């Protein structure tokens, strides 16, 4: 019998939303305890700051350029490798409960397996990307996934209480709600136990209960929150009064300060802030960031924190169930998210082609199976979500296949230095309705360096360079600072030297998201 793996992801969760990472708004004692008894990573970055590419990186252990999901709406190719396949082949029972999103959601023909499987199921004895059991959910209460069908069957009256994710034009909805008319906020009267966070935990526990005591298992428990919309059960919203929530350090309260900071960045920042450019499907098309008020930032931050607390409590229930099965000493728990959320930084919300900490610095906690007796550590060296798949292989005692491009996560800074965890790379490519944006970023030492390739708004000479030691909020772009030219040149060269292999031909964009 080997080590079992509970892999927990959230969606679009900031690093600073966990107590163990210094967060002060959401109470997250369960994950904080995992961090205290395990390894907490202070510089974990995604390889893409949007869902489908990032989740595909987690699954394949490859960079977006290599697995082919170069933007949301590009389905993961059927022949892409999967760590779940590797583990299943090694004898692990495998499940994915919650949000998958390796294939597009907006699928009116229902041609993608993930959207069809709640009706069709998996053929007997078959797996989907290595998972023998899948029960899927997304952010909303409608659509073809398991959660939506369950809600429609069991609690149809609850559907109307959710925020409508898409507007009448199938654009991301920008309508406001709550007490501040904040975008993507709505009072949702749903009973807490029917909300998708608890549903994901319930279905995870049900699957674990179906296993034999001696089974080895890998369970990816994937919460759709705290990704917008921010419509948690209204019964829980009172936990945090938004009026008491401090503004995030990255939100300059004076409009002229926001404008000054953004104007020192490549021009698509200001164009989106002013509502003159929409580059992607990751934020409401009709919402203008410059209209975001301080109170709206507070209300969204409070609701986001409530969602993080509900997740933490749901994780606690699952860990209790694991303990009840007698597995507590044998289970590795890994907690992370697919990417971050701007959360008011620079006066912005949601996500997009903006490679700054709000989107790139992720919560990552690995609590090795207590039976391994590894010492708790804090790792400050850069790691990536690309390193998760080889980590799962290492936990399972399986050699990481050659197609994986990362390495098993370090258990300490000493280990990281010995195995040369020096840099982490992040890519952005988007091409939507004639507008293209392409970024390549390296984080190493105390620098974040982003190179812009030619696109609709950029001629290929632009860039961003931030000194995280002196400017942790990344408000001072040093790209054009002659005094930093040598650092910039070295980072650009380092980035070029570590460009991941690109899949050829590049898969086609098949849907908006």
């Amino acid at each position, binding site marked *: 019998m080997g080590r079992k793996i509970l892999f927990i992801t959230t969606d679009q969760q900031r690093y600073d939303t966990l107590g163990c990472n210094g967060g002060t708004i959401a109470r997250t004692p369960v994950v904080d305890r995992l961090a205290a008894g395990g390894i907490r990573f202070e510089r974990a970055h995604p390889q893409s700051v949007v869902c489908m590419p990032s989740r595909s990186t987690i699954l394949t252990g490859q960079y977006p350029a290599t697995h082919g999901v170069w933007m949301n709406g590009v389905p993961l190719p059927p022949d892409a490798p999967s760590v779940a396949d590797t583990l299943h082949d090694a004898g692990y029972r495998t499940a994915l409960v919650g949000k998958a999103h390796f294939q597009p959601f907006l699928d009116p*023909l229902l041609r993608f397996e993930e959207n069809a499987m709640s009706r069709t199921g998996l053929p007997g004895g078959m797996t989907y990307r290595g998972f023998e059991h899948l029960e899927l959910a997304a952010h909303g209460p409608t659509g073809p996934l398991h959660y939506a069908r369950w809600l429609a069957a069991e609690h149809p009256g609850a559907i109307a209480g959710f925020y409508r994710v898409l507007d009448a034009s199938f654009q991301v909805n920008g309508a406001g709600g709550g007490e501040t008319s904040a975008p993507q906020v709505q009072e949702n009267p749903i009973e807490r136990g029917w909300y998708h966070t608890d549903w994901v935990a319930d279905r995870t526990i049900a699957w674990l209960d179906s296993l034999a005591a001696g089974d080895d298992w890998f369970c990816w428990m994937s919460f759709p929150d705290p990704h917008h919309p921010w419509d948690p059960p209204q019964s829980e919203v009172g936990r945090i009064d938004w009026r008491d929530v401090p503004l995030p350090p990255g939100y300059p309260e004076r409009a002229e300060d926001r404008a000054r900071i953004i104007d020192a960045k490549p021009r698509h920042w200001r164009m989106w802030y002013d509502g003159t450019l929409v580059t992607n499907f990751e934020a409401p098309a009709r919402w203008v960031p410059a209209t975001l008020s301080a109170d709206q930032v507070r209300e969204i931050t409070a609701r986001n924190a409530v969602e993080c607390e509900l997740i933490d409590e749901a994780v606690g229930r699952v860990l209790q169930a694991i303990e009840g099965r007698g597995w507590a000493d044998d289970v590795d728990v890994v907690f992370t998210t697919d990417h971050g959320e701007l959360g008011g930084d620079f006066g912005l919300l949601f996500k997009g082609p903006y490679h700054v900490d709000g989107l790139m610095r992720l919560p990552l906690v690995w609590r090795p199976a207590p039976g391994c007796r590894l010492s708790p550590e804090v790792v400050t060296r850069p790691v990536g979500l690309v390193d998760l798949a080889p980590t799962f292989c290492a936990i399972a005692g399986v050699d990481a296949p050659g197609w994986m491009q990362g390495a098993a996560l370090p258990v300490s800074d000493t280990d990281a230095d010995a195995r040369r965890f020096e840099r982490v790379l992040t890519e952005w490519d988007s091409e939507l309705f004639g507008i293209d944006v392409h970024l390549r970023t390296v984080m190493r030492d105390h620098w974040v360096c982003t190179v812009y390739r030619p696109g609709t708004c950029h001629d290929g000479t632009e860039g961003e360079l931030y000194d995280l030691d002196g400017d942790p909020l990344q408000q001072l772009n040093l790209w054009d600072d002659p005094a930093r030219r040598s650092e910039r040149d070295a980072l650009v060269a380092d980035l070029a030297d570590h460009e991941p292999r690109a899949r050829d031909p590049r898969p086609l964009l098949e849907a908006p998201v």
Partner: protein
Amino acid sequence: MNERASIRREVRITGSADEIWAVAGDPARLTEWFPGVVACEVDGDTRTVTAGAGRAMTEQIVTIDRLQRRFQYRITTPMFRQHLGTVDVVDLGDGTCMVVYGTDAEPAMLALAVGGATGQALTNLRALVEAGGPDAGAGEIAGS
């Protein structure tokens, strides 16, 4: 962001223009190559397409021009404010053809959701034709 969008996908297929047109220009053969379409019925200039979930979409056939080898149709279900799909088979004169599938629609996101499927449709069409002619390959591709 514009309300309307225009999506284009294309593929080069080894085969004669007549072979390709026999499939692409026949509105009743859509199930053989368009992903997610499980049934289609043609009644005059109306085509009813059924997707995997059992959802039916009605379409108006606008153009079947065998001389230009152009097929056009409109999706008329209400969620589209406008739609025009165009399939052109262009003989390149070297034993290959370029097949171009255009989708012009409003709202833009539905244009991409439907037009995004046309790339896979053309890949399926190429496999169908290059497998030895439309009849030979039809059974393998249907329902893929």
